[in-house]
């Protein structure tokens, strides 16, 4: 903070409907640094960045770039000032091709006004290559996996010759090797004098790439400093006000009988020969790299995908599930990943999102009881610490992490006997993560079967009794949760080792 910073956001204030979200925040970014913006869910990080990106207007405060005051009246102006913004939620037009998305709104044209398709494809290809992504620029975005969508979103920001790049949780859907490539790229950008504002709840990432940090809490600037000089625990404390143990949850368990049994499940091109069992009270994890087929496997189990062979038994009874409704009737719930696409109904209120899959719990003679819904939401709001002032507003007004908590509440309310969580802590802060793990453990202690899908090995290692590792649609290893090491898991996840015998 000694020399003049490149960007200063000074005394930022912002309220939504009379609720203050930013209370006098000052943020300073130097040229050529990677600056971590940290804070709990709902602390105001995205809001602050939306102001810098011209999406929202501040109630008070000013922005200086190179000591010159600038007004970001709309996103276009912000872009002209050299700011690129990778938003927290993906904003792709899925019915367009990759290159069309990349150049949306800034298409290249020749003198006659025709689009220079080949050149756009070439540039798209080059930028994606820098991130190590090899996809056809003419592929439709809807056919791509989420991690690619996220990478395209990142590439799009690189396309404009910007001097400041805002990355709001860019790695929530990325696999580790993709994250590492992104970090390489970020370091290169930094060397060429570009400043990056980096928001993430993964503290390991902060340590890995960021130079300085600023912590927000409840809309106030708490502290800013050098990342090197702080350890993770201190930063955590600054963010959530207490330290969080990263240790494995030790839980006493007495498993009941086998509740779910899957035999020989196969779906062409997605997964094959899947066998596993889940007992009552057991937490089973599935991990692997992107494209290992775990999401598709459980979407099939949940009845969302129908083209598969093999048998599924619940309580030793063979069942056929061809629609999510049937899965729920059979006692299976699924918290999907990628909430914006798969879980959020953005036009419904927070409360109505919570009750959507269990409206029966709130009905009396065919009519929905508003009060019952509201009271139940109040319960989850306290249980999961959901930060929302007025739960009647539409859910898209909540911060990313808080949206995720509502989705978890929605499935807790269904009360399924077998609950599948796909990437459940996407966008959730370290403190809240702990609370969600506690809820999951509590479910198991109540005798429910829980399945956790995650690309982060440490996550499954923290709470699962049994860990399955998948590689290219097959289960390649099965560990006891206490014995697994991250290294072992990686071996099987990358296919360099197989343990077919143990799995049978």
């Amino acid at each position, binding site marked *: 903070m000694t020399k003049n910073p490149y960007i200063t956001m000074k005394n930022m204030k912002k*309220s*939504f*409907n*009379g*609720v*203050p979200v930013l209370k006098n925040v000052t943020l300073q970014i130097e040229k050529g640094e990677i600056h971590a913006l940290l804070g*709990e869910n*709902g602390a105001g990080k995205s809001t602050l960045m939306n102001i810098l990106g011209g999406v929202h207007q501040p*109630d008070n405060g000013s922005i200086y770039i190179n000591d010159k005051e600038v007004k970001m009246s709309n996103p276009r102006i912000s872009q002209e000032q050299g700011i690129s913004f990778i938003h927290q939620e993906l904003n792709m037009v899925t019915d367009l091709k990759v290159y069309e998305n990349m150049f949306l709104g800034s298409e290249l044209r020749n003198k006659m006004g025709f689009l220079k398709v080949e050149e756009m494809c070439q540039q798209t290809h080059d930028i994606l290559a820098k991130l190590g992504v090899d996809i056809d620029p003419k592929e439709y975005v809807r056919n791509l996996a989420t991690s690619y969508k996220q990478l395209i979103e990142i590439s799009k920001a690189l396309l404009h010759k910007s001097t400041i790049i805002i990355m709001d949780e860019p790695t929530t859907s990325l696999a580790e090797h993709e994250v590492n490539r992104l970090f390489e790229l970020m370091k290169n950008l930094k060397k060429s004098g570009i400043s990056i504002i980096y928001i993430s709840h993964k503290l390991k990432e902060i340590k890995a790439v960021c130079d300085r940090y600023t912590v927000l*809490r*409840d809309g106030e600037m708490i502290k800013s400093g050098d990342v090197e000089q702080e350890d993770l625990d201190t930063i955590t404390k600054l963010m*959530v*006000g207490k330290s969080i143990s990263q240790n494995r949850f030790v839980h006493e368990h007495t498993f009941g009988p086998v509740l779910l049994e899957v035999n020989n499940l196969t779906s062409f091109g997605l997964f094959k020969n899947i066998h596993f069992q889940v007992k009552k009270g057991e937490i089973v994890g599935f991990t692997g790299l992107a494209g290992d087929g775990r999401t598709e496997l459980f979407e099939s189990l*949940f009845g*969302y995908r129908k083209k598969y062979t093999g048998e599924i038994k619940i309580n030793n009874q063979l069942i056929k599930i061809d*629609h*999510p*409704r049937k*899965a*729920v009737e059979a006692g299976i719930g*699924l918290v*999907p990943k990628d909430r914006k*696409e*798969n*879980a*959020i*109904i*953005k*036009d*419904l209120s927070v409360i*109505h999102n919570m009750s*959507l*899959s269990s*409206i*029966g719990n709130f*009905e009396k003679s*065919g*009519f*929905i009881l508003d009060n019952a819904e509201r009271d139940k939401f109040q319960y989850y709001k*306290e249980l999961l*610490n959901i*930060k929302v*002032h007025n739960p009647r507003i539409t859910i898209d007004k909540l911060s990313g992490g808080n949206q995720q908590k509502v989705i978890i509440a*929605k499935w807790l309310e*269904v009360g399924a006997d077998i609950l599948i969580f796909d990437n459940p802590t996407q966008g959730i802060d370290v*403190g809240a993560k702990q609370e969600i793990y506690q809820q999951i453990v509590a479910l198991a202690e109540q005798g429910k079967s829980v399945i956790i899908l995650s690309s982060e090995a440490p996550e499954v290692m923290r709470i699962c009794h049994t860990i399955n590792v998948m590689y290219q649609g097959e289960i390649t290893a099965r560990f006891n949760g206490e014995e697994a090491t991250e290294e072992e898991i990686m071996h099987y996840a990358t296919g360099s080792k197989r343990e077919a015998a143990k799995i049978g």
Partner: protein
Amino acid sequence: MANTNVKEYSPQVSSAKSRLTWLWSEYSVIIAFIIIFIASTIMNPRFLDINNQLNILMQVSIIGIVALGMTVVMLSGGIDLSVGSVLALVGVITVLALNASGSILVGIFTALVVGSFAGFLNGLMVAKGRIASFIATLGMMAAARSIALYIAEGGSVSGEVKGFTAIANNDLWIFDYPVLIFFAMTALVYILMHKTRFGRYVYALGSNEKAAMLSAIRVDRIKIAVYSLAGLLVSVAAIIETSRLNSISSSSSGVQYELDAIAAVIIGGTRMTGGRGKIIGTLFGVLILGILNNMMNLMNVSPYLQGFVKGLIIIIAVVFQKRE
């Protein structure tokens, strides 16, 4: 934790502006209605006459009932172009059933069955056949009109049962039956959409179909129900239309009703892509259209120009929608 005890801030003076924008965004159609109403009162003294007012209500009731169903379809993310033709078909078959049986009850029952069956077929095509609703109902539009023309040999059919005309031509106190039926239907559809799970599911499906499905909603069945409901409401409208003159024309009845209904829904603030909108909005959308028609008649605007004015209003409504 730090954030459980965030104080509840009540809206303050500083938010007066934001409250105004909220008011506008939630109730713009009602505000527009009030403005148009006042402007009409000033422009023509005959407008406020009670008989004229009741006349407007009477004139909008048929389109109003059709527009209610259209709202539900559009909230689900679809559109129903077949309403006008289905109305004619239902009318023709109803008159035949009425004349054959001599019973008003049989006539009404036939109407309801034919209308909801046509809607059911629309729903089936959209939900199970995965045909875009625009195409599916365009097909139904052509097919239903053609069958109506065939049955009636291109002409009109008239009722021969005494008492059938009472449905549209009697009144209770100052209100004609069709107006009362329209209000009753509005209330019913309102309750259905805002107080029952069906309504909740329709909004969810119109907003994010994949997420609705993953929320364990039977998306296909809801879609079929939505189109069937629209068909059922069309048959209610068809009964009134037929009863009014005790006859129905296979060639001209119901022509362009889909346009008026869609216009009312859009003016009422329902989003074209679904998931967002209100039944009350449609009610006021219908009333605004009614007042405009009425004013153009009172002010002797050429009937040929009335479509132009209506078109203009729809486009303005959509522009306003886009802005948010």
